[in-house]
């Protein structure tokens, strides 16, 4: 069933790591196979932050296999050498878990070429690449992932997240949300629902040079929107086109460096509760997610079918 949550502070920054943790933990009954965070932090905007994995955290039902840490080390070495080849300079390097890394990079060339090169290393996937965005996703519920990656102190303007009950693909990080909007920096997507024209769309997008890292239908939304923007559409235009271009039932959130958006399919089959004020927009699959950040009595509503909304920071 899955649960999604998101919030955007308009005109100020807040502890979005802790806030999103509370929202997603309130939705843990909707799925705790994996949890993912897309956090838009406060940075100087000079360097790219690349979150990537060199291996999997594997659970029962996964399509991935367990590997030795020495394999991860070998992959990391190849990534480092490829970065040199690309002319990218590693400013800061953190190995958060044996399979999960965070690099700050100086780089000013084509991101698609960059991503293709890095992801040509077998078992390596860029989870996010951006000057504000950091995608953190792993197995377990929101609290467990937050503690594992020390996210409770992350300050930022906005964030989206996902509590996953695996139905369409394996229990592993590559199938977990959020999905990065490859090859655009700072674009991420979370989704609740099922897409029924996944393969048709995927084949078409792959022919246009877009990449898929999993067989999770939700990844299609990120790739679909990225392709639309690559063709010149604005985020909102791409989202509106997705209402007819994507078939199935869905509610999804998409975030960019300075905006947060939501879209709901024309069947309105997937839930969403929304709170809007001048300072803050908070939304989630259930009201209890919003209540974790706004315990006082507030006015909320269910967006109607076919609704698309985008807010700026």
């Amino acid at each position: 069933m899955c649960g999604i949550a998101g919030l955007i502070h308009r005109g100020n920054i807040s502890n979005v790591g802790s806030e999103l943790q509370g929202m997603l933990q309130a939705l843990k009954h909707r799925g705790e196979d994996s949890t993912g965070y897309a956090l838009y932090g406060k940075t100087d905007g000079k360097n790219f932050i690349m979150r990537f994995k060199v291996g999997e955290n594997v659970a029962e039902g996964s399509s991935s296999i367990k590997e030795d840490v020495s394999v991860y080390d070998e992959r990391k070495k190849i990534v480092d050498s490829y970065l040199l080849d690309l002319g990218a300079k590693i400013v800061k390097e953190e190995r958060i878990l044996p399979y999960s890394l965070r690099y700050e990079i100086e780089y000013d060339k084509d991101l698609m070429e960059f991503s293709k090169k890095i992801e040509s290393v077998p078992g390596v996937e860029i989870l996010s690449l951006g000057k504000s965005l950091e995608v953190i996703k792993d197995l377990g519920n929101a609290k467990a992932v937050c503690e594992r990656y020390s996210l409770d102190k992350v300050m930022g303007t906005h964030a989206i997240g996902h509590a996953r009950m695996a139905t369409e693909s394996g229990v592993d990080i590559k199938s977990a949300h959020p999905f990065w909007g490859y090859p655009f920096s700072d674009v991420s997507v979370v989704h609740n629902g099922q897409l029924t024209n996944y393969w048709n769309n995927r084949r078409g997008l792959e022919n246009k040079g877009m990449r898929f890292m999993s067989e999770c239908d939700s990844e299609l939304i990120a790739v679909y929107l990225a392709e639309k923007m690559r063709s010149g559409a604005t985020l909102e235009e791409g989202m509106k086109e997705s209402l007819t271009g994507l078939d199935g039932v869905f509610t999804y959130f998409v975030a960019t460096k300075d905006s947060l958006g939501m879209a709901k399919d024309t069947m309105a089959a997937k839930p969403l509760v929304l709170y809007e004020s001048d300072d803050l927009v908070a939304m989630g699959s259930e009201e209890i997610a919003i209540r974790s950040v706004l315990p006082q009595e507030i006015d909320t509503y269910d967006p109607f079918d076919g609704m698309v909304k985008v807010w700026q920071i």
Partner: protein
Amino acid sequence: MANLKTNEKKTKAQSMGLHTEVLTGKTQQKFFNPDEAENFFYWGTYDVDFNKRTDLDVHEMDCKDANRKIDELMSQGYGTIVIKNPQGKHSLGVGILNKLNLIFEGSLGYFGVGSIDGPTVRINGRVGWSCAENMMAGKVVIEKNAGSCFGAAIRGGDLICKGSVGARTGIDQKGGTIIIGGDAGAFTGFMMQRGRIIILGDVGINLGDSMYDGTIYVGGKIGSFGSDAVESPMTKSDIDWLKRKLRVAEIGENFDFSKMTKVVAGKKLWNYDALEPTEKKGAI
């Protein structure tokens, strides 16, 4: 309650030729026995005094504990219960089968006040999906908005939302009245079978899709009609009934009923006995 599995002597019902076999299973053991007085009472109900009032703060409770506490208070005769800090919790106030004044000071999550039969409920907040699902009787008033599947499969009673509601309001409705003060989403009245829905605002696409019977009144714009939903002329009886109903619901004062659209089943999808049209049932 008769335990039919161990009962050697025939009950009166069995003497009349009914169910002489040994029945097992929890449901079968609750088989009606006219000799036992307890069968003439509604299980799980209490005699309550409306003047006996109490507050219940559910901030630290989960929904099970909160519902148990409400049940306990009713068993002590409390007839007016005010729930404080519901904070969007799911499944609060469900399965209440007796008269009761139940007031929520805040919003509910999913499945609020489902399967009720009799209480008068006021919710000073919003409700999530499937509020009052399977309601049999009583009155529920929501002061703010409601989520999707509002009043799913209700059999009776009045369900009133003063704000707007999500999609599939009154899905599978089998009786009673749903009144919406604001707008309603797509598939309102989907597969409804009896009862009435009144929407004072606009309504989304596929209104009354595959409805078998019942009536939908819309005060604003209609996104589109669903399969087999058709417009029907408003009659004086319709307007008289609407005026009465909205007055009781305390919304829609000075509403211009001449702008209302009445929607009923075209009955082209009917695939069952045509001897059961609305007019032969006597009332909706």
